[in-house]
């Protein structure tokens, strides 16, 4: 981090940042080995570090505030949602007048108004809409999400940049650290992911078991609870009555219809407990959320981001769980990497004949048992080999389909390519991104594989 010129310049606004500078300018015994304390360290971080915050909800609002007050000056925030009234009990950057506006834009504006000198670029879009290179500009990615799929996607993007040297050690410049937070009611977690060193999201995916769904036969034949009646109206009755019209959980009329149908069914079977609030909870799968837990978890994440970037103290190793239901229970668990992980490992090996074309390669991905990826787009070292969308890119890259991969990869015996497409996970089609190691048969011994040249 040290740069002699910047360190020599007097620090900006020393009075304002007095407290933070104490931590960044004084040496300590329990710090990271890379820590280089100096009065100018804060300015170095402010000038050279770009941070991405994924999500501008309960955690995201807190994270932007915490990071802006931790010396980070270049932030980006990405979120596809707009503000809802039910966000206001914890997403403190939003006001009632903001309802309906994009979260990322309002959150960025509010933090910039309050903390002078900080610049936040909002991105009101889906995380999948961004090109991979967008994510490569950040030194660290902080996640404030409530969806497993989104975490999994960002994790695969960040791990996708990771390259291994010939000894299977991570190449330091390609490591993109992440800090991930999550909450549910009084409980939450904060974790640090250093791809190639600590377990990635996919290594411990079992920590996030998929939600249990009611069997359809229970809903149709032996309902017992209010939730069964609601799901019957939602998953079975709606389609029966509204042939083809999609259900919209944000449409109050739709929700009212589900509620009244659920009530009718509950009455028919002598089941109690159907309320409008429960109907919303079941249909939208609402996770209860409170300001204090979001504040606690975000603070832990921001602090870890500051420590990772500055080295001013050790890092959590590597997973904190918090539970405020009974006392304030903190537990740190050191999970281990899955060395065979498809996402943060060196990459799934695909062997190709030198004559295999790009289109044959894409076909292989569909059938590969570990990938089962359809509609794949393929990139190599930041260059698009084939893109399914948008249309202009598809047209530009279409002619590559008939060219052998060996030629497209400039005749190198081994190369790392990134593929993104749709894959099946828990019975659902989800966006998937995978890093692959392509080896060409008969060109060189596979044991001498070196992926560094691919960049």
């Amino acid at each position, binding site marked *: 981090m040290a740069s002699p010129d910047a360190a020599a310049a007097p620090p900006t606004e020393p009075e*304002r940042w007095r*407290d933070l500078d104490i931590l960044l300018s004084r040496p300590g015994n329990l710090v990271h080995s890379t820590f280089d304390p100096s009065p100018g360290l804060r300015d170095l971080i402010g000038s050279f570090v770009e941070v991405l915050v994924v999500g501008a909800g309960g955690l995201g609002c807190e994270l932007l505030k915490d990071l802006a007050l931790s010396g980070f000056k270049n932030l980006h925030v990405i979120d596809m949602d707009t503000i809802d009234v039910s966000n206001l009990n914890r997403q403190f950057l939003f006001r009632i007048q903001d309802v*309906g506006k994009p979260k990322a834009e309002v959150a960025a504006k509010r933090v910039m108004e309050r903390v002078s000198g900080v610049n936040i670029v909002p991105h009101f879009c889906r995380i999948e809409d961004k090109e991979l290179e967008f994510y490569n500009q950040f030194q660290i990615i902080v996640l404030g999400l409530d969806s497993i799929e989104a975490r999994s996607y960002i994790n695969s993007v960040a791990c996708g940049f990771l390259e291994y040297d010939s000894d299977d050690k991570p190449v330091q410049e390609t490591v993109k650290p992440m800090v991930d937070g999550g909450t549910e009611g009084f409980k939450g977690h904060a974790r640090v992911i250093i791809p190639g060193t600590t377990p990635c999201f996919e290594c411990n995916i079992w920590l996030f078991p998929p939600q249990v769904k009611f069997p359809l036969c229970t809903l149709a034949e032996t309902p017992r609870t209010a939730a069964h009646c609601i799901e019957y109206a939602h998953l079975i009755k709606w389609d029966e009555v509204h042939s083809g019209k999609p259900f919209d959980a944000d449409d109050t009329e739709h929700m009212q219809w589900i509620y009244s149908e659920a009530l009718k069914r509950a009455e028919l079977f002598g089941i109690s407990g159907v309320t409008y609030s429960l109907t919303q909870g079941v249909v939208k799968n609402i996770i209860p959320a409170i300001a204090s837990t979001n504040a606690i978890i975000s603070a832990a994440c921001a602090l870890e981001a500051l420590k990772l970037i500055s080295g001013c103290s050790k890092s959590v190793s590597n997973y904190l769980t918090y539970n405020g239901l*009974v006392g*304030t229970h903190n537990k740190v668990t050191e999970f281990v990497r899955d060395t065979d992980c498809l996402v943060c490992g060196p990459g799934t090996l695909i062997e190709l004949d030198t004559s295999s074309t790009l289109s044959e390669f894409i076909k292989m991905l569909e059938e590969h048992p570990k990938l089962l990826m359809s509609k794949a787009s393929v990139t190599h070292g930041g260059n698009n080999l084939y893109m399914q969308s948008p249309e202009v890119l598809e047209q530009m890259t279409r002619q590559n389909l008939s060219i052998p991969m060996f030629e497209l990869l400039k005749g190198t015996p081994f190369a790392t390519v990134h593929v993104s497409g749709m894959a099946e996970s828990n019975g659902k089609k989800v966006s998937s991104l995978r890093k692959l190691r392509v080896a060409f048969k008969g060109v060189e011994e596979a044991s001498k594989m070196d992926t560094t040249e691919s960049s």
Partner: protein
Amino acid sequence: MAAAVAVAEPKTKYDRQLRIWGDQGQAALEKASICLLNCGPTGTEALKNLVLGGIGSVTVVDGSKVEQSDLGNNFLLDEGCLGQSRAKSICSFLQELNDAVKAKYVEESPATMIDTNPSFFSQFTVIIATQLPESSLLKLDSICRSANIVLVAARSYGLTGLVRVSIKEHCVIESKPDHSLDDLRLHNPWTELKQFAKSIDICDKDPVVHKHTPYIVILVRLAEKWADAHDGQLPSTRQEKREFKDLIRAHMLNVDEDNYKEAVESSYKVSVTPGISDEIRQIIDDSSSEVNFSSSDFWVLVASLKEFIANEGNGELPLEGTIPDMTSLTEYYVSLQKIYQAKAESDCLAMEYRVKSILKRIGRDPDSISRACIKTFCKNTRKLKVCRYRSLEEEFSSPVLSEVQKYFADEDSCFAMNFYVLLRAVDRLAANYSRLPGQFDSEIGEDVPRLKEAAVSVLSDMGLKGSSLSEDLIAEVCRFAGAEIHPVAAFIGGVASQEVIKLVTKQFVPLNGTFIFNGIDLKSQVLAL
């Protein structure tokens, strides 16, 4: 769509938290008045979380003016506030977050307020005292104790900090634990449940009926069958429990019968020790359950519970009255639900009778505890919690030595114990030198041995000789020099606000001592001293 709406419907605005603490919890929050001492980032962040959740009113006591350094760590201040009252500036930004909350301020230093106007504090539900030195905190604690006001002390200090709750007694009916065993009484079924189980043929040859017979019925019937063959005893040894599972499996018609799988998984419930857990026994036997005119409702209810157990309860608590979802025909399940509900209602009625008669006996209005309250109590008797906190004075003058030694012996708690001692040592040094150790770069070298000396004297006052402190942590605390780092303050303030919510709603269980934040590796601990 909703952009034209000027005010948010509270039901919608608070939806995500109402799902946690319900209308009653929310009503308690909206009635509460909170006083914050010192509105640095730790206190401000605590209040921010409470204001968002719709706390009744907040009063900020702070005598300082906004300085440059406030803008580096407090989000609710900006350049426009420089030179103005910090309390006033914070209040106006807090008000922006939620106009349903009343935000007031007093421009006065908390230490002066504690010294000169102790009666000021008696108007509040909870006092959140932040960044106060030990001497002021001790005085405030005794003021709060005598007025029976909840005190939550919070402090951020570099990469460490603490939160301490102090109140003589805090009783919780709705502790809402994460996991609790269903109250099914399979070890001791009552007549109606047994009769219902008997009315169902568990050997019904109709496969649909067979695989939709609820496991409650299966277990009641098979436990009876087992008892008949074992001199009236239920399975108790490991071997017997295994055999009982085999007995259940022997009744399966098919391997895919979920209800039988559930019965095997729940088979241990027939072997539950009857009667009352040690924890609840302790509450029932507490001297406070000898009630008089000035006893709280909670203890009147406990006294009634004690009578109930000895009489109608036959040694058991009132039935909770709810059953979990299980594989079953709708009609069986609904009938079972009704049987459990009816028993719970009759237990509750008996309790109500006892509550009234006790109230009458101690000279109170027999209707002064509502039926709804008795019902809630009956539903939660297995989960009652009584939290008692020692005063700070007691903790400081006579800590529980065996606990202290245990903490020093454990690696993670040892870190927390070091921070605890060092933060107290900081206050002693500050009292002597009028500055924090490490405050000036030039004096860090001298401050390290001074802090160590002060820490050793704290230890010896606690009655500990020879417990060794970590040199690394002494140096760290000197390095921190009392800096309030925003994310640390947000964490500590977050914990403080969460404790306030639990104390005000009287739901969930507040922390039972001093929470010590460890910002180095996040292995924070709670010390009960």
